[in-house]
């Protein structure tokens, strides 16, 4: 098997073996027809199971502010990666790519959360996929 074939085969094996699926059905809660991109500042973080919720103030074009809630993953995983409730302090600017809630409220899932310096939350420290844990020189 050539190298490309091996990589493709490895990816296939991963996909076939992947235990996908969050704690609950995201497709039942959020609407595939309503993708949203939100730019806002963190108001508070609910550090709760089964899912974290990030409360975000989003400035609208007319200058007014709208409060949104963004659903993330379990805090237990983040704790093991060295992140805590205070890792996203109030005022942190975030760009959220996700899908709006089917119930019409200002809620969305955080498919991708990007910090304003372009780092995907919280991926990309030295390109390894490791979180920012203070060990990387670029974080000092």
């Amino acid at each position, binding site marked *: 098997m050539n190298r490309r074939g*091996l*990589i493709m*085969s*490895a990816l*296939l*094996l*991963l996909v*076939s*073996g*992947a*235990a*996908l*699926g*969050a*704690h*609950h*059905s*995201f*497709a*039942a*809660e*959020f*609407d*595939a027809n309503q*993708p949203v991109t939100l730019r806002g500042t963190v108001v508070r973080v609910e550090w*709760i*199971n*089964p*899912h974290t*919720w990030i409360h975000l103030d989003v400035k609208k074009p007319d200058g007014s502010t709208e409060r949104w*809630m963004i*659903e*993330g*993953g*379990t*805090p*237990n*995983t*983040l*704790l*093991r*990666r060295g992140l805590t409730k205070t890792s996203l302090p109030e005022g942190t600017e975030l760009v959220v790519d996700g*899908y709006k*809630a*089917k*119930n*019409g*409220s200002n*809620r969305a*899932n*955080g*498919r*991708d*959360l990007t910090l304003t310096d372009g780092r*995907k*939350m*919280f*991926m990309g420290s030295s390109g390894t*996929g490791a*979180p920012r844990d203070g060990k990387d020189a670029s974080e000092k």
Partner: protein
Amino acid sequence: MRDTNFVLIVAVVSVLLPTAVVIAQNGSPGAPPAKPYTTPKTPWGEPDLQGTFSNRTITPFERPANVNGREYFTAEEVAAMEKAAAGRGGDEGRNRGTRGDVERAYNDFWWDRGTKVTTLRTSLVVDPPDGRVPALTEEARKRAADEGKRPAFRGAGANGRGTDSWLDRSTFERCITRGLPGAMSPTAYNNNYRITQSPGYVAIQIEMLGGTRVIPTDGRQHVSSSIRQWLGHSTGRWDGDTLVIETTHFTDKILYRGAAENLQLVERIKRVGPDELEYRVTINDPTTFTRPWTLAIPYVNTGEDLFEYACHEGNYGMEGILSGAREEERKAAETKK
């Protein structure tokens, strides 16, 4: 041409087979240890299984078609799979604006699916020998087709069902339980367990959704079969250094791959090294599966603690699912007018 193919197949097989055997002999994860491992004992003389373990793995649950029936991965395949897993970001194969993309929820930073194969086997299903879950009985197939007619009968982990009531949602979504052996099998995150022992008891604390199984090993019998529980009724005993747990008396309100109140489990847990347990479970329900089948899942010591998982407290998801369905119904009614 035919001869050329035959030579090629022989060459490939003779390269692949010894690789698997060599890996298995070298004591890699999941392979039998070279020397028999002596299980330490608790101060009161029972085998000591205590510790904090994770069963996350990138090993497939069932044997994928593209390994052509092989029982073991090659070292080359393992390296490629682990490299791909370490590099994945969660965007692979996603199409924006699709239901599948919404269901994937978020990028890989939030997941904890593991980046290693913890066994060189090509599937967690070790019996039947083809590494696949056996076929359902005709009765079970008929039951599955009629399942929607049975009120309040929803399966653990089976998402996307009815939305009339919280009762229509899975017990996983309802923060109750993933059932058995679901709660002992790896999922997308929180794959952590803590085992503690006292004389005559083994307790298995499960991080995902929380909860602790308390297994008596004092020789007691099962309670009356009129008592039915989410996790059934378990009794334990020691077979040498292996903990054997027999579980029966499941409720009819939770499904495991189509099996419910007739499910019977035999779990066997033993230490295979200082940092690893082997967890095996044989799943039997003649009314559902055409034969008993067995999973073997490595539990690897994490050296970390467990965190609490007070699921009900933050279950906004349930509210979002049900209110979302009401909003869709309201919109549909408006369109009709």
